[in-house]
């Protein structure tokens, strides 16, 4: 177990995040947001703004900074601000004021007078359901509706009608904001035709590419730097509005520009998780065998329809064995802030619905919910031939049930004084993915090594993982390996997202390390070299000859007069995808206490047991999972954006957008079953960034039902959901 290498820097305040950079001559930009949710900006009076002290420039759709829409394979198109007068949601960036100081820019921004031609906004998912549209194909290319029917079965309705036991219910989940500690911000510096941008983002090379496209500059002219990212969770996958505006304004003004969103602005001017409505029907035999599953999902999406939260595709499509299954995904375009990836996009809200429904079925059958899940555990996604590469979910449930005292659970919960106590459980799954990634491994003459990639460490521990896998692959101590990341000048590490970074970068290291060792051995045995003509091998950081002589790699490099040698390794999803299905698995357990009189729900115990392949570094892996589970509590009991009819966010600050505080979170127990999944990638790791949140909200709702007998089908669960009179 290794503590994270960057912890001391972060704890002592020496880690320099994007907006900690203050180059000489820097000026400050402040973003202006729309105050209506739908319509057109007809005029912006900025006379008073220009006259305000310290103001250097005011940019609006009428006097804009030219920006072009960039595209990348993962994020698709990224919206760039101020290019037209359309207003699609309240809190949309429509202006940018640059001044000598932050306070001057903010003060001046408050003087902008905006005129709108307003149109009636549509902001409520419920009201928009009637106008729902079929969603575009999901990330893996599946159509909006997927139907799997056993031969002879005409329709899912027939299969449900023929099922001896059926449960049917509708679930809803609230929209959320990532609310990362570091607000979206950027410092942009132009120097002799080259732009350097310091801005927290999930992939420096992707950010550099999107800035280059937006600014119509060659890629070589843009350098993105983000060695530290103060939380991202999917909300920093795309290049942010402050980064586009700071970069363009810095070019226009010939001075470095810093731009940072305020906490309140982050809620609308970045990305959010969609609200969802999900209708589920499960049909089963009396012994619990699933016969039919129908999962219809509606997700809110902004008017651009740029991102759809796919809840049924990412859960019911794969989780259980069933001969008959129909899943569908619709989108409901609304005048709301953009939606985007957020930790376990699809799986988090989808698992609330599916895993609540499974619990309802268990109640209906009078069966233990773990037994019901075991009975329907899938060997492969329904209707697919490719079996799971490595699945130990039953073992997770077994260990969890034992540790958590599941056998003590009784049907109607238990009473402790004035507290009603209940236990709940749920399955967690998250696909094992990999993105293309390249890593450079360098051996230095001073016997140190460097492992470098442009990818980001948004608090996940990738930096430490690079050093550990690098050390392992080079057979040297981790202290001798310098990891580097978060710089677009390094080999392309792609996106830190989808819980992929360890598997992707790790696999690339395992390609690069043998290559650089091969080169070392070739050099060592070359004419004039210390091992000329000898048969050599490599171990323990040394080159060894059959005659017993050995030299460290540094000694060899010095002898042949090289300061360093390097190799770049790349990895990408490959033919494994045609052989197996890949996923991580977990069993979530929660105990809740509900006050008999005042109905507050308190989570009193939590346990997650995870099958996520090989765990490279246990401490940060546990932290990742714990963080995910805590966010699950937040989604279940606290968090939700309240968007009013006119598009105003009623709770757009940390005083009213509730996230749990320490008092809300009990000890969180995280356990692993470790089965390295080398069918997926040579490292055997499947990623732990997202699976922690999956299933938690359902486990809590199921525990609430166990405690109180009340089934709550919406999150966050509030006191009034549990009050009868």
């Amino acid at each position, binding site marked *: 177990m290794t503590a994270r290498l960057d912890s001391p820097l972060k704890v002592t305040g020496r880690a320099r995040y994007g907006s900690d950079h203050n180059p000489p001559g820097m000026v400050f930009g402040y973003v202006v947001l729309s*105050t209506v949710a739908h319509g057109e900006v007809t005029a912006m009076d900025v006379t008073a703004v220009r006259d305000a002290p310290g103001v250097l420039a005011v940019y609006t759709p009428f006097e804009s900074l030219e920006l072009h829409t960039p595209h990348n394979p993962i994020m698709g198109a990224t919206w760039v601000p101020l290019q037209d007068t359309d207003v699609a949601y309240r809190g949309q960036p429509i202006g940018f004021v640059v001044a000598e100081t932050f306070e001057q820019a903010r003060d001046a921004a*408050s003087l902008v007078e905006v005129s709108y031609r307003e149109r009636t906004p549509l902001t409520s998912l419920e009201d928009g359901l009637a106008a729902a549209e079929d969603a575009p194909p999901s990330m893996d290319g599946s159509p909006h509706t997927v139907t799997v029917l056993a031969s002879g079965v005409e329709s899912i309705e027939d299969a449900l009608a023929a099922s001896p036991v059926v449960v049917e219910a509708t679930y809803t989940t609230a929209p959320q904001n990532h609310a990362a500690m570091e607000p979206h911000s950027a410092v942009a510096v132009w120097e002799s035709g080259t732009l350097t941008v310091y801005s927290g983002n999930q992939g420096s090379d992707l950010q550099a590419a999107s800035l280059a496209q937006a600014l119509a500059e060659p890629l070589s002219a843009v350098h993105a730097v983000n060695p530290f990212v103060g939380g991202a969770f999917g909300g920093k996958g795309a290049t942010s509005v402050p980064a586009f505006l700071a970069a363009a304004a810095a070019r226009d003004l010939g001075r470095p520009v810093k731009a940072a969103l305020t906490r309140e602005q982050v809620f609308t001017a970045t990305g959010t998780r969609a609200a969802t409505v999900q209708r589920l029907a499960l049909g089963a035999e009396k012994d619990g065998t699933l016969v039919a599953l129908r999962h219809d999902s509606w997700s809110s999406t902004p008017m651009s329809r740029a991102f759809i939260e796919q809840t049924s595709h990412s859960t019911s499509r794969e989780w259980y064995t069933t001969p008959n299954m129909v899943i569908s995904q619709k989108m409901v375009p609304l005048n709301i802030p953009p939606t985007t990836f957020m930790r376990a996009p699809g799986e988090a809200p989808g698992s609330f619905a599916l895993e609540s429904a499974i619990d309802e079925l268990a109640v209906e059958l009078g069966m233990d919910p773990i037994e019901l899940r075991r009975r329907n555990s899938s060997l492969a996604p329904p209707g697919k031939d490719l079996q799971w590469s490595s699945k130990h979910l039953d073992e997770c449930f077994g260990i969890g049930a034992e540790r958590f005292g599941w056998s003590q659970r009784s049907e109607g919960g238990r009473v402790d004084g*004035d507290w009603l106590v209940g236990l709940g459980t749920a399955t967690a799954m998250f696909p094992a993915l990999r993105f293309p990634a390249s890593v450079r491994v360098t051996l230095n003459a001073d016997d140190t090594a460097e492992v470098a990639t442009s990818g980001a460490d948004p608090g996940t521990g990738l930096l430490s993982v690079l050093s550990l896998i690098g050390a392992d692959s080079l057979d040297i101590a981790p202290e001798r390996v310098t990891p580097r990341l978060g710089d677009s000048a390094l080999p392309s590490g792609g996106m830190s997202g989808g819980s992929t970074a360890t598997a992707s970068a790790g696999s690339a290291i395992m390609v690069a390390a043998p290559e650089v060792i091969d080169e070392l051995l070739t050099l060592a045995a070359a004419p004039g070299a210390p091992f000329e003509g000898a048969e050599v091998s490599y171990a323990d950081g040394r080159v060894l000859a059959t005659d017993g002589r050995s030299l460290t790699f540094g000694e060899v490099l010095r002898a042949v007069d090289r300061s360093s040698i390097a190799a770049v390794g790349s990895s990408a999803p490959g033919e494994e995808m045609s052989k197996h299905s890949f996923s991580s698995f977990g069993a979530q357990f929660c105990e809740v206490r509900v*006050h008999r*009189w*005042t*109905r*507050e729900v*308190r989570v009193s115990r939590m346990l997650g047991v995870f099958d996520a392949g090989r765990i490279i570094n246990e401490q940060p892996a546990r932290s990742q999972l714990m963080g995910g589970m805590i966010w699950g509590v937040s989604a279940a*009991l*606290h968090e939700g954006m*309240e968007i*009013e009819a006119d598009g*105003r966010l*009623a*709770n757009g600050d940390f*005083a*009213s957008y*509730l996230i*749990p*505080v*320490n*008092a*809300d979170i009990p000890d969180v127990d995280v356990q692993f079953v470790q089965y390295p999944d080398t069918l997926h990638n040579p490292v055997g790791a499947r990623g732990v960034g997202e699976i922690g949140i999956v299933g938690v909200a359902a486990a809590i709702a199921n525990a609430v039902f166990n405690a109180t007998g009340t089934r709550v089908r919406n999150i966050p669960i*509030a*006191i*009034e959901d549990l*009050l*009868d*009179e």
Partner: protein
Amino acid sequence: MRPFELTAPETVDAALASPGTFLAGGTTLVDLMKLDVLTPERVLDINTLPLQGIDTTDGLRIGALERMSDVAAHPGTYPVISRALLLSASQQLRNMASIGGNLMQRTRCGYFRDVSVPCNRREPGSGCPALTGANRMHAVLGTSESCVATHASDLAVALVALDARVRLVGSDGERTVALADFYRMPADTPEVETDLRQGELISEVLVPRLDWASRSTYVKVRDRQSYEFALCSAAVALDVQDSRIVDARVAAGGVATVPWRLPSVEQALRGAPPTQETFEAAAALATEGARPLSGNGFKAPLLRRTIIRALREVTEEDRA
């Protein structure tokens, strides 16, 4: 935030002589200045004025500049007061925030705090979006067509239950006012929140001696376990002798436009045995006249239940 002039008067007389907005801990004032809700031109830092001290010789006398954390920790404080304080805000805020400032804090209504929307309390006559908008946190008691905002102080609820008074000093002298009379229901002038006159200062809080208030508590129900305002709260003190309730004090928070004393509930408790039936019958009277809004209908049942819970908690031993 708009530019302002900051001065620190050295005596109470100097503070009263110069017009301006008083700054104590600043946890309400600076917050609202940042939001442009309050835009004072002159701010008077009163922190060096001699308005300190906690005296327990006869009842409780608390200087207006005492910090919430110090009062909560003081051994002579009644349980209902220290619990109300400890369940308020966070330790950091309690270390900064003063008792006078706490009583003068403004409502947490989201529309009041957002200058881009109307609000009768902030801009008289502009309208009240909460009547039809996000009003889950709002009041069901003491409301009017002009304003339905709750009073947010937990401490004030405990103090009202204990018949506390505030001493006010102005340029024309001193007066003391019962805290229950100090706060104004909104009626059609929601901008007038208290009886405090222009330039007047709260110098201290006086709590009459009430020995049996050693049996008292404050129950606060909220959406998370700490660092959040009440959806509903109850301050309760009971005098129980020989299995009879001799006297009772009950007040509610989070549900009303001012700290809400509940004399009818107290009356129903007096003389009755401390049983569940008594508590339920008494609590049923708490919500007489409640006017629920679209999003807060649950507050009436929640108030009854919160009172029952508080009464159960202070009589746990009697009932055992």
